[in-house]
């Protein structure tokens, strides 16, 4: 047992921190106010290895492991949660293709994702009526000669309008979960129709769109893994994805705490800095404590994944705890800022809006509790 970072992990963290401070943070407010997608940032993240942190070097990745990935996500998220979520999905898509793709698929698509040539990746699983309940998906893929033909619609697709590589789940038979398959769709493929971007409460710099497939044709080689493997791939990807969102939550929470510490030292009331008042000091002590616990849960799940050990339970615990904590921490940060916390001159109201989705996407807190309960009941005999 040892909680120290190794050299690679420290290097990735420091690289991400520097880039976050110098490039990502200064534009975060503008992205939020104007709902701008940070298109130019991703190729730079790719150059630094941050779009394929856990991807082998031959495919353009940093080959630095899952812990490094989580650490990088924390740093970028502390600067801009919108930029970070695009980074997370790109890493996720790259990892999935790297794990299940053929050599040709990896060479082409993983490299495009990890280097930033694809700008970003996307992950098209959710539909209007089916989120965590993947067995209910309706988008269909039919084999016609040497082509797959996709028809249907996806909802809430992060980075959908800008992604060069999209992993799409579609039904290849009616056999429930076992009838799902996974496909690689390149951005701009004829038949891919990008809908109107959602106007969201937060994460405004992240692009969220519905995608429609109208007789979208794919060569047979764009099937990822085997026919019917889709559900398994979704579950594997989501376990890993939960580590990414946990890290995002830790980053946003940390930013909110740091803003609070700063503000409480500057702002005076009743003749002293408000950081001198016990009520606020105790709030910040609790924020700090819970964030530290959150980070440890997140990194524990990351080390398990990195070692190839089971981590479903730990990833769900991390996602649940980190996202609930970041929401609570951001809410307290707004409180500490008083009226200034409610206006966009200070960043904390953005943090709160950005944090809010963390208990929802990649499995709501309720889904995480279901997963955890299922796992813990395995320890008692029925």
């Amino acid at each position: 047992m040892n909680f120290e970072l190794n050299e690679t992990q420290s290097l990735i963290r420091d690289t991400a921190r520097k880039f976050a401070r110098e490039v990502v943070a200064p534009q975060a407010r503008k992205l939020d106010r104007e709902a701008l997608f940070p298109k130019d940032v991703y190729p730079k993240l790719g150059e630094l290895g941050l779009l394929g942190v856990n991807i082998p070097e031959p495919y353009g990745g940093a080959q630095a492991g899952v812990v490094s990935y989580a650490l990088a996500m924390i740093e970028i998220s502390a600067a801009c949660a919108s930029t970070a979520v695009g980074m997370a999905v790109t890493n996720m898509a790259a990892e999935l293709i790297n794990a299940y793709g053929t050599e040709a698929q990896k060479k082409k698509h993983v490299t495009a994702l990890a280097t930033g040539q694809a700008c970003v990746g996307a992950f098209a699983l959710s539909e209007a009526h089916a989120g965590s309940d993947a067995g209910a998906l309706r988008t269909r893929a039919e084999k016609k000669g040497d082509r797959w033909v996709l028809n249907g619609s996806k909802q809430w697709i992060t980075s959908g309008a800008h992604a060069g590589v999209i992993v799409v789940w579609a039904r290849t038979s009616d056999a429930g979960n076992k009838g799902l398959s996974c496909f690689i769709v390149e951005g701009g493929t004829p038949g891919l129709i990008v809908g109107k971007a959602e106007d969201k409460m937060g994460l405004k710099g992240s692009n969220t769109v519905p995608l429609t497939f109208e007789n979208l044709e794919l060569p047979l080689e764009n099937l990822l893994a085997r026919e019917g493997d889709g559900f398994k791939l979704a579950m594997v990807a989501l376990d890993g994805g939960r580590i990414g969102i946990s890290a995002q939550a830790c980053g946003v929470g940390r930013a909110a705490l740091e803003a609070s510490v700063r503000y409480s030292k500057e702002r005076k009331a009743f003749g002293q800095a408000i950081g001198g008042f016990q009520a606020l000091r105790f709030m910040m002590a609790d924020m700090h404590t819970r964030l530290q616990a959150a980070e440890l849960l997140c990194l524990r799940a990351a080390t398990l994944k990195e070692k190839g050990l089971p981590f479903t339970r730990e990833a769900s615990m991390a996602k649940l705890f980190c996202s609930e904590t970041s929401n609570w921490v951001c809410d307290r940060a707004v409180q500490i800022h008083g009226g200034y916390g409610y206006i966009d001159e200070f960043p904390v109201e953005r943090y709160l809006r950005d944090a809010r989705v963390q208990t929802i996407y990649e499995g709501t807190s309720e889904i995480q509790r279901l997963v955890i309960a299922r796992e813990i009941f395995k320890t008692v005999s029925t």
Partner: protein
Amino acid sequence: MDFELTEVQRDIQKMCRELAKKELQPNARKWDETHAWPESGVKKLAELSLLGVAVPEALGGAGLDNVCYALAIEEISRGCASTGVIMSVNNSLYCDPVMKFGTDEQKREFLVPYARGEKLGCFGLTEPEAGSDAAAQKTIAVKKGDEYVINGSKNWITVGPKADSIVLFTMTDPAKGNKGITAFLVPTSTKGFNRQPPDKKMGISAAWSCTIYFEDMRVPAKNILGKEGEGFKVAMSTLDGGRIGIAAQAIGIARAAYEEALAYSNERKTFGKPLRDHQAIQFMLADMATEIDAARLLTLRAALMKDRGARHSAESSMAKLYASEMAGRVTNKALQVHGGMGYSKEMDAERHVRDARITEIYEGTSEIQRIVISASLLKE
């Protein structure tokens, strides 16, 4: 970064888990109800070298690290919270400061038999009007020749009624506040050391505590632990370690409550199905399991830092704060899962709530922990 336990750490955990299951758990309710000292439990701790876990073998201990210590306290407390705190007092509050600040001669007399578990030690800091506010203490030590004459009183001294020695904090120079505090090693057989009957408490009833009066108690100057005026440092450094012990105790109590609730929800049926099939119950248990893990990670982090010799005041405080309040939440939820049975003395759920309650109070209340954490956060 590696969250896996070493083989030794796993072995200690397993050994303590078995001890707790066989020797402690079956007796814990009886000890609680009769306010009996857990004699057989403490004897077992001594036999297995668990009263001086992190003391080197040459000094009578087990020579293990603080991660082992935290894991051991958790398992022992999972069986019996009272036995857990007795273990924590002897290890963290007694052996630890003697090991860190004692002379070789002091270690021979005041450490070796205690680490071996032949004798028990306790820690006397709190007074009726001075708990965490150490500088307010009124126990006075006045130098006379090569002796000090001590007058005053200490209260809530856990293990006090059974202890053979005490690490005693006194004022040798009240004008200097914190810098006027001096620690002494005092055998409880010393003339003028007067113990009162054990306190009546809400929980941890088997971990006897008492008030102690000192009446013209004469202690040789060579029994000063550390230097004169260094007592505050001794106390604070000891509490940094002690808080790891209490955090681990809180996790053990929470785990007892959680594991029993999990088992109960598997058996008990309502509305035609086991409790475990009701989502409200599942979600409570999921939250409990998550919070227990979070607390353990904070606690082991503090223990790792102590092992590395790194400063760990804030980390110990975070572990203690989170783990103790977690134990409050988890034991209450576990009682709720048991329904009416949770309120009955026929089951252990209500004891766990009572036992957990003290962890938010002793070795620095939650409020004191927040003072420590915020001072570190705001860098003052």
